[in-house]
Each structure stands twice: as C-alpha cells, then as structure tokens.
C-alpha cells in the first residue's frame, strides 16, 4: 500500500479507536474488522490492553529480547574472519576508511586486530560460533544468525534508540510498546511489557523502554531484582492483604456511587486498574518466587552460581546469579502471558581489556541464555516465543589501543530463535575482515520489520498518526527477511 493511503487508512482507525467510548462495541468491532485489527471482546477505550488479533496469523506470541548494550564484539563471537587474523597488525586501505567515523579510533594509526578466539562448527547445521559461547553455540540448530546487521549511529544512546524505536530520535515508542499496542496483553495480572536488568542498565536509560508519544499504558515496566519486583508493589507497613482488600472494596463502592452521579465510564476504568493492581500484588511475588522450580532447572540456568572476581568495571559480586535469574524469570513471564520481556545488560563496550572482559561477560551470558532456549523448547514454548540477541552496534575489526575495539555499526551480528524463525541458518555475509556486508545486508529496520512479521504484524500497517505524520517502528524503511522465517 502506498504510504499516503496507508496514512489515511490509519487516521480513520485512530478516529475509531479513540472515539470508541461513544460507539457501540459491536459497531467498533465491525469497523476494526474492516481495518484488519479486531478487538474481539473488550472495548479498547475501557481497556487499552485488551488482546487484539494480528494482521495475519503469526507464529510468535511473546518475545524475549536479550539486549546486550554497549556493542559486543561480533568478530570474536559470531563472525569468524581467518583473513582478519592473517592481516593482524596491517592497515586498512585508506579508501575504505574515507567516509567512516569512529568514536575513538584514530584513522591514520588504526590497524586490523585479529581475533584471539577460536571458532568451531556447532550443531547439525555446522554454523560457526566462538568458544566464548559454547552453550549458545550448542543451540545453533534453533538459531537464525544474521551477520550483516547495520545501522548508521556510532554512539551508544542514539544507537540504542535506533534499535529500540527504529530511529535515533527520542519520544518514539519502543518495540515492546508497538507489540502491546498492536496485540494487547494476554496477562490479566502482570504488565504486558517488562524490563529486567542485572546490575548495570543501558546508557539510554528509560528511553529504551519508553512508550514515547503513546500513553504510558504501553510503556515497559521495570522489574527489579532487589526489593519490590514492581515499584511500590508491597503494601505499606501495617497493611496486610485483608486491609488492602477492605480499602479497595470501599474505594470501589465510593467510585461506583460517584459514577452513578457523574456517569463517566472513566471512573469504572479507574476501579478496574485498582483491581488489576491488587491482583498484581500477588501475581508478581508468585512470579519471582523460584521455589517451585526443580533443582535441575535452577542448575541449568546457573541460579546461585558464583561470579568470578569482578574486575570488569561496575559489576557487583552477584551479577552471574542475577543474570541467570533474569533469564529464568523471562520464561516464567512468558508462561504468564507477558508479551515482551527486555533483558537489558550493559558492559559490552570493550574499548580496552577486551580479552578479559568479553570472556567475563560471556561467562555470565552463555549458560543462562542457552538454558532458556532449551527450557522453552522442552516445554513446547519455543514455537511461539521469539528469543532475540542484539545490541546497538558491534565492534571494529580495527584494534583500539592494545586490547580493545571501537564502535562498529556497519556490520554486526544479531540472532533470533523460536517464534517461527528458521533455526540453523546464517543470513548475510561480511567481507574478509568483517568490515561491511557483501551479501544480504540487514538494516536495523529490516530486523524490526522481521520481528513484527513473526508476530503477524505488517510493519507498514502498524502505525500511529503523530504530529501529522504516520509513525511506525521501522521508520521509513524495513524489509522482512524472508530467509530466516520458517
């Protein structure tokens, strides 16, 4: 569809949904049906998170987005480059460096830096993964690895915005917000979009899970692993569940009486939110209580394991355990209907100390992520749960200092597993030194288009009119990568 007519079409739907309070539910449903998005039961103006049907039948129902902020080094993890190793210490041809910019590397001095990591073929598919991530490698047959992701932002926060929002611009909704907006939430007791961090969050902070110009209903909710999992989830001291119930009963009764006078449906909606909050108060602790998990499961993820001496900057002493717990929590959330879980972890920004810190990070991430994929598969959940590994960019094949690499947005690796993804595949090929794509380049917007597609959403149709223009996750671009879809 031409963007202009898409826009008109969208505006009408916006009109219909936003003015839904005045329309009969059935009339609304019939209108939405024509538009290709249906609210089968509930009225969206009363419950903006009511589950909605997708544009077409997609396999994925939930997404666990493993966001390795900082820029993990793809040439040391996912994209083996023997030629880079043989050309270690040599300069890049000046012509290749002409139009590129780096955050720190000085062009005139920069030399190629080979990888110290060993790669080997994994799984039946035989895709190569580095020895730093043997466990993830062992899941190779589930994974579609894309080696040619590229963007144009070479600083952290803008790069993170590109990945989360489709454009390096603040104020736009993030991926999870779009999924919630497009599909609603399946969970009656938990937020539909959750963010988990262990230790250090991403440098972009809350803009990485913002709903932008969409209402905060669609915003990511930070689940915390210390104190209340959700902010202010616990009752105040001296208030027990019975007290809270009685207070809510009184609130509900008084709201109802006021509603009888003012006849404003917003009042009932407020009461409903209080009831949801009350349910969340028991559902969230139940979620984070891991006592029902078998020891085998806990061990598989690495719950309780020790963190090696944290010389990597800013790591606390239990990061390994916390990261494992977050991966397990993500599975428990999917089981409970949470739509989008963002596991955010920063510290992949190795301008120096690459050898040690990358190994340390992989030690943290490899086991729990692999356990998550296996666990989902074993429980039959991998078919409709999409697992993504990604970052705002990768790292230069050029060295920085003796033991570091700079930001590299021109070609880096991301992967997907489950949720309708074709496992055991590699998509895209970079040149001999891993500098740029030579075959099947995938822009970040293409990746996003593919992600939405797996959920049955057409990225060009999922748009909202903002300040006179249709805004969508994939900005003005985006092509679905059919090769990685089953």
């Amino acid at each position, binding site marked *: *569809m031409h963007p*202009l*007519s898409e826009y008109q*079409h969208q505006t009408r739907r916006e009109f219909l949904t936003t*003015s839904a309070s*005045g*329309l*009969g539910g*059935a009339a609304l449903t*019939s*209108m939405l049906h024509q538009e290709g998005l249906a609210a089968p039961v509930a009225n969206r103006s009363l419950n903006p998170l009511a589950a909605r049907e997708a544009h077409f039948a997609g396999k994925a129902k939930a997404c666990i987005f493993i966001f390795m902020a900082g820029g993990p080094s793809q040439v040391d993890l996912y994209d083996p480059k023997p030629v880079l190793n043989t050309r270690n210490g040599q300069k890049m041809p000046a012509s290749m460096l002409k139009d590129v910019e780096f955050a720190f590397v000085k062009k005139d001095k920069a030399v190629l830096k080979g990888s110290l990591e060993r790669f080997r073929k994994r799984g039946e598919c035989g895709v190569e993964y580095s020895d730093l991530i043997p466990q993830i490698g062992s899941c190779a047959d589930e994974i579609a690895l894309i080696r040619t992701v590229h963007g144009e932002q070479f*600083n*952290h*926060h803008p790069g993170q915005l590109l990945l989360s929002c489709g454009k390096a611009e603040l*104020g736009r909704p993030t991926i999870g917000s779009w999924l919630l907006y497009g599909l609603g939430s399946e969970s009656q007791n938990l*937020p539909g979009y959750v963010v988990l961090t262990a230790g*250090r*969050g991403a*440098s*972009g*902070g*809350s*803009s990485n899970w*913002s709903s932008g110009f969409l*209402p*905060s*209903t669609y915003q990511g*909710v930070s689940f915390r692993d210390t*104190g*209340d999992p959700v*902010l*202010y*989830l616990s*009752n*105040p*001291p*001296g208030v027990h569940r019975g*007290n*809270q119930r*009685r*207070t809510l009963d009184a*609130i509900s*009764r*008084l*709201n109802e*009486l006021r509603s009888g*006078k*003012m*006849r*404003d449906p*917003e*009042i009932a909606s407020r009461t409903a*939110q*209080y009831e949801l*909050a009350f349910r969340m*108060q028991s559902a969230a602790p139940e979620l984070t209580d891991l006592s029902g998990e078998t020891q085998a499961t806990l061990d598989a993820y690495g719950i309780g394991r020790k963190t090696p001496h944290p010389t990597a900057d*800013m790591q606390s002493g239990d990061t390994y355990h916390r990261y494992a717990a977050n991966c397990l929590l993500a599975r428990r959330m999917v089981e409970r209907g949470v739509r989008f879980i963002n596991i955010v972890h920063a510290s992949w920004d190795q301008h120096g100390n690459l050898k040690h810190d990358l190994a340390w990070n992989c030690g943290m991430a490899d086991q729990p992520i692999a356990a998550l994929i296996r666990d989902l598969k074993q429980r039959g959940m991998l078919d409709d749960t999409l697992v993504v590994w990604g970052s705002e960019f990768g790292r230069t094949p050029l060295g920085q200092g003796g033991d570091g690499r*700079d930001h590299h947005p021109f070609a880096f690796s991301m992967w997907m597993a489950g949720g309708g993804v074709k496992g055991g595949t590699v998509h895209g090929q970079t040149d001999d030194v891993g500098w740029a794509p030579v075959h099947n380049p995938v822009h970040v917007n293409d990746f996003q288009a593919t992600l939405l597609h797996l959920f049955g959403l057409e990225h060009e149709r999922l748009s909202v009119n903002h300040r*006179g*223009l249709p805004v969508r996750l994939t900005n003005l671009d985006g092509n679905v990568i059919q090769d990685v879809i089953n």
Partner: protein
Amino acid sequence: MIARGLIRNLLMVLAVLITGPVMAADVDFARDIQPIFAKRCFACHGPAKRESGVAFHLRTLAVGAAESGERAIVPGNPGASELLDRVTADDETERMPPKGKRLSVREVGLLRVWIRQGAPYAKHWSFVKPARPEIPDVKHSGSVQNEIDHFILARLESKGLRLSPFVDRAKLLRRLSLDLVGLLPRAADVESFRNDTSERAYENVVDRLLASDHFGERWGRHWLDLARYADTFGYERDDVRPNAWRYRDWVINSFNRNQPFDQFVIEQLAGDLLDRPSLEQRIATGLHRMNIKNNESGINREDYRNREMVDRVNTTGTALLGLTIGCGQCHSHKYDPISQKEYYQFYAFFNNVEEKDVDIPGTFDDRARYQHALTAYNVRKKRLESQKELLDEFHKHKSPARWRDSLAEINREWAMLSKRIETAIDKGPDGWTAGLTQVESVAWGLTKDVVAAVSTPEDKRANEQVRLLKKFHPSLKAKASEVFARIRSPAQRLEVLDLDESLKSALAASGSDTKEQQAAVGLFWVSLDSRLDDARQAIRQLSVQKRHLPKPYLMTLTEAVKNRRRTHFLIRGDFKKKGEEVVAGTPAVFRPLSVRGKVPDRLDLARWIVSRDNPLTARVAVNHFWSHLFGSGIVSSTDDFGTQGELPSHSKLLDWLAVELVESDWDRKQLIKTIVLSATYQQTARRREDLKVVDPENRLLARQSRFRVEAEIVRDLFLNAGDLLHPKIGGPTIHPAIPSAVSDIGYKYKTRWIVSSKPERYRRGLYIYFKRTNPYPSLTVFDSPESNLCLAKRNRSNTPLQALTTLNDPVFVECAQALGQVLARQPAGTESRIQFAARKCLSRTFQPEEVRALLTLYQAEKTWYGQHPDEAVKLIGDYKDKNVPPREAAAWVAVARTILNLDEFVTRE
C-alpha cells in the same frame, strides 16, 4: 432485540461519520480539498510526478488540459470535470485512485461543491490572520455569561442542544482552584464562597486565585512542558545542568507578574539581543538551553550541534506556531506550505547562537557555596586517593614488614633529596645547581627554562638565565618543605585509613605485637581486596558528586560575533550533505519579516512571531490556555495547526479569543479570567444521555469535562490533604524519598539522590529534580513529560502502576498518615470526622451511602488493629498521637488512604 440495537448503533455511527449533505459554506480548500489531493492523488499527480499530464498541486495545472485533452477540473462545472467521473467510476480500471479505498461519499461531495464554487485554491484557515468575528445571536440568552457562551451556545442551538446547568458552588470552587493554582480550596473558603450571594462573589474568587503566587507555579509548569525543561542534559552521560531551575523560576515569575505574552516570547527567544539586557532577560534565553545535549565522548560534535539546532527550530515551531515544521528538515513539508529551503532559512536564525554560561552577578552565596563544596570535595578526594595508594602498596609488598622496609627506603630517598635542595639553598643562586642532574631537575618540577639555565655552566649563562635563576631561587624553599613533607613514618602513612590504634601500631612497627594484634593484622591483610574495591567505589562515587557541585553559573544563549557560520540547506537533513547557502528568513506563506539591521536575527524573528499580523501565534496560545481549562483545545491537535491538524471545533470563538488576547496587549491573566467567567466553563461535567451519540467527545461543550489531574498535581493534592505541603515558591530542586533500586539505575553515574530534609521535601511536584534518563517514577507513572522534546499535550493514561503508587509509595502513604492524624484530632464523632474529610478533600459532603461504606471500613479496621496493635503502630508511623488509641489512629489512616485514592480525589470535575 440485540440485533436491532446493533443496527441502530451502527446507523447512528454512520450518521455521525457522514454528517449529512455537504453545505456550500462548509468547503475550505486547504482544510477539505488539499488533504484529499495530498493523500490520494499527489503520488502520481503532484509535485513529483505528472502522470498523463495531470497534477493537482497548482491550480493552473489542475484546470488545464491533460494529455488526453480532457480537463480534470472545470471550475464551476462539476459535470464537465473528469476528476469527478474518475473518482466515482464503477469500472475499476477507470476509477481513481487505482489503489486503496474509494473516495467516500463525503469526499466526493466536497470535491463537487468546491468545483461548483469555482475551485478556488485558498489558504488554509490558520494561515490567514484572524479578524474579530461578530458575536452570534442565541435564543436562550438567559444562560449566557459572556461572549464565549454566545459562540458555544449558538453552535449547540443549531443542533437543538443547550448548555448544562452550573456545577454547584463548592465543586465550582474546587475546579477553579485546581485549574488556576493546582491546589485544593480550603474548606473555610468553600464555605464562605457558598454563603457569599453577592454578584461579584465568583469574580472575587477568580481575582484572588489569579493573584496567588501559586498561579505562576501551575501555569508555568504548563509552559515548561513546551520548553522541555529538565535538570539534566540527557543522553548517555546525562550530566546535571547547573541552575536550570533559575529558568523555571523565571517562567513562574513571568506568569505571576502577568508579563505580556509577547514580551514573554521575545525575552526567551532573543533576550540577549535586547538593548542592554537585564540578568532576568538573559535567564529567559535559557529556553533554548533546555534541549537535550549529548556529552558522550567520541561523538561527532558537528552532528550533535546540528541536532540541537533542529530541536530549537522544531520546539519554536511547535510551541509558538503550532506547526510541525520539523518535517522540513529532511524534505519539503508534504502537506503544509513550508519548503525544505524555508526550513533551513528558519534554522539560520538559530545557527549562530552560542551557549554561554554566565556568572550570576551579585550572588555571593552561590559562589561561596560552590567554593566551599569544591574545597570539601578536594579534601575528600585527596584522602580517598591516599587510601587507595596505601592499599595498593600493601598489596604490592605482601606483608607489613616488607611494606615498612620499602617505606623506609622511599623516605631515605626523599630525605636525601630534601637535603640536596637545602644545600642548594645554602649555596645561593650561583652555586646551587652544582651537581644537579637533568633527571633530578625534572623530578623537582623545574620548568624547561630553568632546567636549561641550570644545565648551562655558570660562566656561560646568559644574563637572562642568571636573572631567571635568581628569581627562581626562593621557590626552592617551598620545594624543600614539600619534599620534606613527603617523608612520613609508617604511623603517619596509616592515618588515612581509620584503623583502630592497636592494629595501627602493629602495622607501623614490628617486634612487640601481641597475639591479638597479629591476628588483627592477618584479618586486615585478608580484607585488602575488598578495601581496595571500596576505595575505588568511593572514588567513583565522588566523581559523581563533583558533577553535582552547585556551579555558580547560568545557562544562556548569545549571538556569535566572531567566526559566524553560514547556513546551508542540508540534503535529506544530513549534516554532512550541504546544499546551497540560505539566509535567515520566514516561510513565504506568512507575512514578510521586518528586519532592523543588515541581516535578520533572532530578535526580528521573535518580533515577527508575536506581531499582530502573525496568524498563528495568538491562536496557538489561546488554544493552550483553553485546553488546560476544558481538558482539550478548541483545536484538539494543540501541536498542529497545519493542514493535517484537527479543525477547530469553534473557529470563530478561537479567533475572538485570539483577537482579545492581542488587543489586551497579550494579557494572559485577563484571558484566563474571561474564560473562567463564562457559563461554558461553569457548567457541570456530568455526562448527558442526549450527548452520547451526537457528541461523544464533548467537542461541542454542552458540558464541562472531567479528567485526572497532572502528575505533579496528584502529588500536590496528597500533600495538601495531609496538611504537609510546604508552599515555598521557587529555588533549587528537591529530592523526595525514592527506593534505592531506582536511584541506582543511572548508567555510568548513579543518580545522586540525597533525600531533601523537612519541610523542603514536602514542596510541590514541579520542584522535583528531573533526571532525563532516570526520572522520578511517581511523576512519569502519571504521564509527566519525558522532557526530551517539546510537548504540547500530555497523555492521560490510567494504569495499575498509578494505583500502586498512590496506595503504596511511602511519600503518598505519609500523606494518608498525616490526614489520618488530622481526622483523629477532630472533635469526637466518627461520622462528622468522615464528613470533615469529604469537605477537605472533595469540597463536598458525603451522601449517606458513602458515609456508610466508610463507617463500615472504619469499624472493620478498628477491630482488626485492636487485635493487631503492632500493625497499628506500623501503619501510623510517625503520626501517632498520645491522646488517640493506636487502633483508632490506624483506622483513621485507613479511611484517609481510601479517600485519597478515590477517582474523585485526583479528578478535576
């Protein structure tokens, strides 16, 4: 039965959508016709392409002959216009547009009427200067208070509707109080207003509230949304912006002293260019220092400078002109008549601004505070670094004895050095250099010139060098004592560590230590790693603090004098792809700019924006004011008055208000007063059956609106109800309590969050420190802006997290505790206390059924807390009263917490 209901609903929906036949007077080219062309035709028949020789973006082309010889539009003759045949064709191969849905019956009707009218290509309504409209007549003039009501009622009467009755006086005062000052009216004021039957009673109250200093806080905050005000710079580092709050206070004061709106705008855009600008006028230019700024290392400065300029342009466009001018950054605006070149001409006004941090004259306190904090910081830093240094030495030498040995060795070297300097001093300027090696010279911190002089044999020194050495000689004394000071015994070295005496002496000297001491030394050695970690951590923390030191300067803008930049058109908005050079200018669709000097500057721009001839500024401004008093603007797209924006619900009223504002010399308080004195404002917000279908969104204003108050006001009302609110106006930001899980989120630099002391911490929500990457959660949960971009309209969401916040956030719980205490201290009588709470919080009394529900709660809680006295004490917290039994006090907290969590409490209705 159900089916019949559905069909009826559907028919009503269609009736609303189609709204009957198109009336001739209804058709406006820019509003109705151009969007159809833009959305459905331009792709093939517009500026970019002219398929089959047909195009609609220029009238001459649209009415000319196509390749086929047919004419798409024959003005005045719809029957002869090929366009109408094609859009209504049944044959799909004939029909236009070829893709997507058919044009609607209404769209075709609009085209037909417009062609019949002669197909004029007229300007969009908002690009034409508003003229004072005639006041329409109304039938039911009895319900009219002022001109506003004529406009509203005339439209209602045309649909067979009337205004709603006035809301009752108590609720009216609550509404007015929330709208004008954002605080609850005092129960006593409600009472006296109810009893004041004089004609001027309401006007007096309005005047009183407009004169309150809280008015500036309430309305200043609305402006701060547009100004993207925040206390940090944003992006990865998100550093503190020192004294950002001074701009915030300037805005508050401007509202309070009722500064004319045109001056308000001029000073913010170009205060620095005024004749001998005052400090206040320079603070006002802080508006365009509020943009996000990337201080991340390794960025391309030019790239981010460009982004900042773009933000300044877009903010100016959105906040003052209601234009989505930002579209022009990458391409000519698709719908509004702003070309990409014109965008960069607008950009040129800002392209030579310089960020200037100026000292605050006469604010000795600030400077002293900064110096004091800096000194304290340096002392602490030095101490921490010596700690780390010492621990590193321990680590290196692996045992106390070896450490002492190495220290003795170092001390010997320092002593030798010190001795040699002293010898040099004794020898005098001519002889002191004998035997000094070059290495030593460097070690002593001698400058190059001195070293050169020293290395030259005495008899060969130039006069210059001799003089230099003479001059330098006295400083050797300082050097000697400095070196001497480095000689420190183990005991002295250990002082930085805060160890207990016995351990210290065991570490300092060997031989006589006891078994206990040896054990302590062993333990100490084991703890080295964690002590080192702690010290490193503390140093990092301290570096955070440095960024928060109260720097005594103000962020302002000035105009560059030297090295002025030329402005270029940027191809597709890319800062690296420069197109032709452009000069500062305003879009051609508007009246031309008048220029004072040789080149147009920001002051010319500011004056152009607030000139009486600017068609947008006054309309956009009154629309903002209106939206805060009715929950929605007359133009509901407050940020877009362009062709893609919504149409005004009452265009004549909008123009009338705009003209009033300009002719009152931009008197903001007068405008607000006129609006709130209208009958339209004073109506009840109760929903009406008869409006459900004809006006579900309350665009016609046959009633007032109900809506949840903004994030900051939710907090203010809670504090207000608990009698906790500290009413101080202005000043540095505050930090109410937050869980450490929140303050720890900051990325490189943890959010420094030292909870403000009492009563500062009970100040209003707009004073809370706003960190862009980690904002105060109880504000953002209620849709406070993220403050990264100009925001003209807040969302109003309703989520479970909001319920958790007002029920459980300790800041809000404290308000319930405080209100509970107030209630418990009222004269005896459970029911009368409950009614007291109703009057205090809701400005009304409860109905019997409501009282019953709260009585039931009170009794149940009293019984339960009677059985659980420990829990009662916990719930009461710091708000106990020795005269009130805990079970009763706790039950009152429960009642208070319930009332504060009612929909009605946080709703302006």
